[in-house]
């Protein structure tokens, strides 16, 4: 599957119960992406998974959800429910058979999600010893879910989702069997709404729609009170105080987000010196200056400050969340920048952590080392910009940055990050092709195709895997299929380094020309600007650019590149140039 992501994603549901309410919940759940749903024949779980000609697969679903009742799939559980004596060891074989069927079905869908098994209607099984006794229902389900998780981890496009929080949201209604007797619906509506919320979060994660930056107010958002009135010594934060502890916990939750690649920034109406003193000096602050990628602490319009920071951080509006205790500020930002998520915020700070968790907008399918480095990378960027202000021009700046680029062929160890980059990059993206890990791996394994990844670092720190180049040999020529670069490393001549690698690879095969075809989106104008103004390629119109491979494409000056092959690393550059050819 290739091309731009569709506006509406297709979700297929395979189940042994009535999924009508889940379909309705998914289709009506607010927030991107919009979905349409289709369901397998009632109860036809194994036949659908095992039949490649099932109508459910005919229009390859983006996501397939396989949600089953344990008593339907696992004979041991069914017999245990009937009070029969069972062999708990047989659970593993039954789960293995189910996983085999799931692995077959997973080849027909982009992603598959399998919710964990829940005890039917929250039954108590054999009572207080249900988990302790190996043949208790709770014990059997714990074993079954563990085997399920273990088995599905081996499949690279299948994820297990924990259904127990969905059941918990139903509270006592979980035991209500009326829906079941009336229509073979095993859960009350609350469970399906919670499931729909998580499935939408999954789709946002899978399609690169996760939010990446949180703009935070300070007074009565990160701490209690108004620092401008009380000074940092007077704010409510930590201590033996419920509200103070709640603010500390909220900061901890935000700090944890930064370790998953979410960036924090401050937008506050305050005196900057006073506010920053609190951040630096208050002993209970969890978030310190280096935890923030940037800040605008002034008396200007907050919407304007948010836009200014987004520009500075090179992030799109749709990547942002704005958190502020003041309804008027929320309304202003919401109206001025509708793409930003502006959640209602609890008046009571004791609800802040819960409010943050319920956003479900930061989820990633995998957290890469690049994600965990991101917050630190913005601090390094501030240091880079400070350096730029001290020197004469871009050439000297690039040289003093000591940019290093490590080029590698795509391999299993970099597949997850490469797919993540492919699905998240918008601005510096030639084709905006979206592929799952499996699809990218399969495409790369074709003999005519090659895929290279680029790890970038400079004297201030590591950016990690931030560039991807894929090439397809077409007859005696080479075409650049994907050419994408994280906006964090734009304008450091990594672009020219990637082109150099493409040209040198094509020249090594004695090919005639190298072509790049730009596919426009609403957001990738910076990519077009590079190919038009800086690449040196011939502009052939309608987004097509070409390079005669009789000519070498020199490495840009100031960039040191090396090709890693297994444990070997060798230098790329043998020629340099000071600017685009």
């Amino acid at each position: 599957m290739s091309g731009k992501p569709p506006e509406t994603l297709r979700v297929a549901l395979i189940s042994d119960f009535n999924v009508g309410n889940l379909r309705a919940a998914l289709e009506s759940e607010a927030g991107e992406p919009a979905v349409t749903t289709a369901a397998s024949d009632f109860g036809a779980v194994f036949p659908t998974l095992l039949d490649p000609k099932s109508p459910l697969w005919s229009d390859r679903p983006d996501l397939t959800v396989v949600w089953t009742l344990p008593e339907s799939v696992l004979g041991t559980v069914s017999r245990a429910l009937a009070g029969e004596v069972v062999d708990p060891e047989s659970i593993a074989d039954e789960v293995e058979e189910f996983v085999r069927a799931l692995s077959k079905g997973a080849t027909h869908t982009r992603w598959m999600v399998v919710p964990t098994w829940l005890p039917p209607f929250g039954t108590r099984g054999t009572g207080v010893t249900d988990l302790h006794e190996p043949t208790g229902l709770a014990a059997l389900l714990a074993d079954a879910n563990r085997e399920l998780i273990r088995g599905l981890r081996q499949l690279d496009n299948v994820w297990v989702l924990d259904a127990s929080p969905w059941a918990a949201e139903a509270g006592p209604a979980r035991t209500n069997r009326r829906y079941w007797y009336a229509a073979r619906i095993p859960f009350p509506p609350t469970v399906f709404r919670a499931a729909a919320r998580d499935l939408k979060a999954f789709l946002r994660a899978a399609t690169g729609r996760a939010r990446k930056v949180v703009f935070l107010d300070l007074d009565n958002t990160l701490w209690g009170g108004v620092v401008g009135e009380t000074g940092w010594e007077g704010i409510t934060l930590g201590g033996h105080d419920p509200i103070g502890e709640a603010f500390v916990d909220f900061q901890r939750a935000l700090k944890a987000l930064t370790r998953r690649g979410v960036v924090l920034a401050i937008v506050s109406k305050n005196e900057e010196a006073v506010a920053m003193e609190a951040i630096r000096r208050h002993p209970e602050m969890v978030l310190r200056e280096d935890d923030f990628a940037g800040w605008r602490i002034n008396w200007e319009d907050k919407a304007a400050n948010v836009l200014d920071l987004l520009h500075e951080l090179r992030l799109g509006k749709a990547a942002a969340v704005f958190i502020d205790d003041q309804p008027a500020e929320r309304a202003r930002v919401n109206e001025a920048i509708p793409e930003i998520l502006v959640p209602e915020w609890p008046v009571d700070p004791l609800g802040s952590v819960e409010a943050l968790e319920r956003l479900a907008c930061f989820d990633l399918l995998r957290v890469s080392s690049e994600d965990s480095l991101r917050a630190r990378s913005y601090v390094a960027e501030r240091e880079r910009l400070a350096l730029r202000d001290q020197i004469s021009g871009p050439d000297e700046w690039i040289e003093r940055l000591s940019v290093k680029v490590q080029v590698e062929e795509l391999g299993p160890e970099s597949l997850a990050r490469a797919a993540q980059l492919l699905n998240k990059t918008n601005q510096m993206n030639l084709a905006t092709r979206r592929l799952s890990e499996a699809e990218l791996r399969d495409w790369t394994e074709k003999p005519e195709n090659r895929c290279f990844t680029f790890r970038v670092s400079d004297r201030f720190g590591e950016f990690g895997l931030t560039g991807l180049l894929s090439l397809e040999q077409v007859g005696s020529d080479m075409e650049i299929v994907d050419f994408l670069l994280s906006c964090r490393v734009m304008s450091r001549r990594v672009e020219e380094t990637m082109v150099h690698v493409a040209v040198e690879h094509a020249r090594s095969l004695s090919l005639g020309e190298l072509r790049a075809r730009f596919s426009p989106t609403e957001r990738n104008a910076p990519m077009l600007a590079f190919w038009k103004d800086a690449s040196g390629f011939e502009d052939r119109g309608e987004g097509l650019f070409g390079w005669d491979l009789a000519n070498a494409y020199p490495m840009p000056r100031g960039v040191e590149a090396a090709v890693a092959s297994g444990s070997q690393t060798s230098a790329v550059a043998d020629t340099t140039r000071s600017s685009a050819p």
Partner: protein
Amino acid sequence: MESRVYRCVSEAIAEANQFRPEDAQIPAEVDTILVGEDAVLDSLSMVNLAVALEGAIEREFGEAVGIVGDLLGSADPSAFRTVGLLTEFVAARIPSSAS
């Protein structure tokens, strides 16, 4: 009594509406046709409405009144064809001892 039951019916309709598209919301008007010819409810919405209504009645009157079986199985659907008739149908099943 009937006004309290009507409030429960409205609440149940609101819950059932959560699973319906915005352009197909069920109006909680007394003459809204629920079942039979020209009905606005599909079978799944009727299930959601019936179970939600039973819960709302229990919360309102403090007593469980079994109506799901009647609404979805044994009773003559013409007896609760509209929102108004449904209100009367349910009110008749609430014991006088209920608060």
